[in-house]
């Protein structure tokens, strides 16, 4: 299995404040996506349609550090292999609508990382409210 670090996420209780912090510190371009609590970060010259990183509200069990994303070909295969090798799943496979799948894991020594699989058909099943 191959995997390349492709982007990272930063979390905070006040993402707008953090956006200002990093924009001032590193000169990053940070733009809030309209209507969602997510800020897109461009750390340097833009490459393609993507962005380098994101900034959002800290999940309930979210880490107090940046989270690196490794892009894989198959989310299911990566999760199975990682677990066989001693990793644990912190956040199960989750759909980002029409974009891809993500999951957060911890390696055998407790370091958090995330994996990503692009998939334009990804969508979560609805739940009764």
């Amino acid at each position, binding site marked *: 299995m191959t995997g390349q670090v492709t982007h990272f996420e930063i979390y905070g*209780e006040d993402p707008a404040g953090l956006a200002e912090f990093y924009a001032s510190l590193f000169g990053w371009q940070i733009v809030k*996506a*309209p*209507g*969602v*609590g*997510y800020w897109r970060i461009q750390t340097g010259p833009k490459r393609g349609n993507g962005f380098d990183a994101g900034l959002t*509200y800290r999940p309930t069990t979210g880490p107090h550090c940046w989270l690196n994303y490794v892009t894989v070909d198959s989310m299911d295969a990566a999760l199975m292999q990682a677990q066989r090798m001693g990793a644990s799943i912190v956040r199960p496979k989750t*759909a*980002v*609508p*029409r974009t891809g799948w993500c999951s957060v894991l911890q390696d055998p020594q407790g370091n958090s990382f995330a994996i990503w699989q692009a998939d334009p*058909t990804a*969508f*979560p*099943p*609805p*739940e*009764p*409210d």
Partner: protein
Amino acid sequence: MVTQATNGRETNMYYTDDSILPENMEPLIITAAPYGPEWIPGDADIPVTWDEQVQAAVDCYNAGATMLHVHVRDPATGHGSVDFDQFNYFIGRLRQAVPKMILQVGGSISFSPKTADAKAKWLDYDTRHMLTELDPKPDCVTVATGTTQWDIMSWMSADDVKGTHLEDNPKVQAAWAGMWVDAGPAFYLEHLKRLRKNRIQPYFVPAHVHQLEIIERLIRAGVYMGPMNLAIAGYGGGTLGRNPYHWMDFLRQVPQGAVATFWTSMRGLIPISAMAIVLGQHVRVGNEDNLWGPDKKRRTTVQQVEGAVRICKEFGRKVATAEEARQIMKVGVWYDSVEETLHNLGLPPNRRDGQPGFLVWETEGRKTVAKTGGDSHPMAYCMVPPPQVAAE
């Protein structure tokens, strides 16, 4: 003392000989429900991005819908949104895109606080009461009056869910079968109070006649003072079923001054909507309720709106403009007293202490001039022939 004959039976939905003629009916208000929270994009015409969700409203309005049943889907997760800021954002965009449309927000939402501070402040039902503080304000928010089992799967057939993620998926079907609406007095008393404070009208959703009775009691007690706009909600599984006699009986008990919309699901929606149209009532269509046409082929929300317009015109009834819909529903109107509310709804007054008998509104006791075509001959009142008759 002469009184108007307005006892309990006659003040509820009452059809005079001419009520059934389409030219005497209020124009039809079509509610569109295009956000089907129970579906995913592969199932039906489900909008996901903000632009798609706004465009769905525009398309429904252009097709003839004047009220929009609003659910918000979080484009980042694909799930129904529980984010207060997202609701405000989306309503703001809707106000720009379809400024005349009546916005009716689905009230079965518990917002999720984003921060620990908010989590500490939002207690119990506060996460639902936040609907009353949306900014910009919607015109109305749906309010259930009574906790109800709401098993939407109870009458769905294999054909109904064909081609959707529910097909051959007993686990998900069981989840929807277990749906119930939590709406006891601990919720709705406070919710109605906050809606009034923020001038957002309730849109009542009684699922059977006993919940309609609760609404009347709330009005008689002064908890709610305003127009009565309501859905007659028939989804089976603990709510009203498809027996037309039950619909008629429910309708018979709706106050004369109320505005009722028939809500039901799947292909049953088509004949029930036709009933609503010919009875002078109003309809709701869209993928939240139904995915099919009478020919068992798929129909988008817009196609369903177009179908309601077609039936209405065929029957000779006018489809409401947005301005007419607002006037019919008395959007923005509030009353100042129990009596004013009862009188406007055509309900009998409250009983005064020691007052016996059936309750009626008192009048000055003077006869009014009868209109031509009334039950009595108009000349019986004045005995003076019209000028053109006298000249002959």
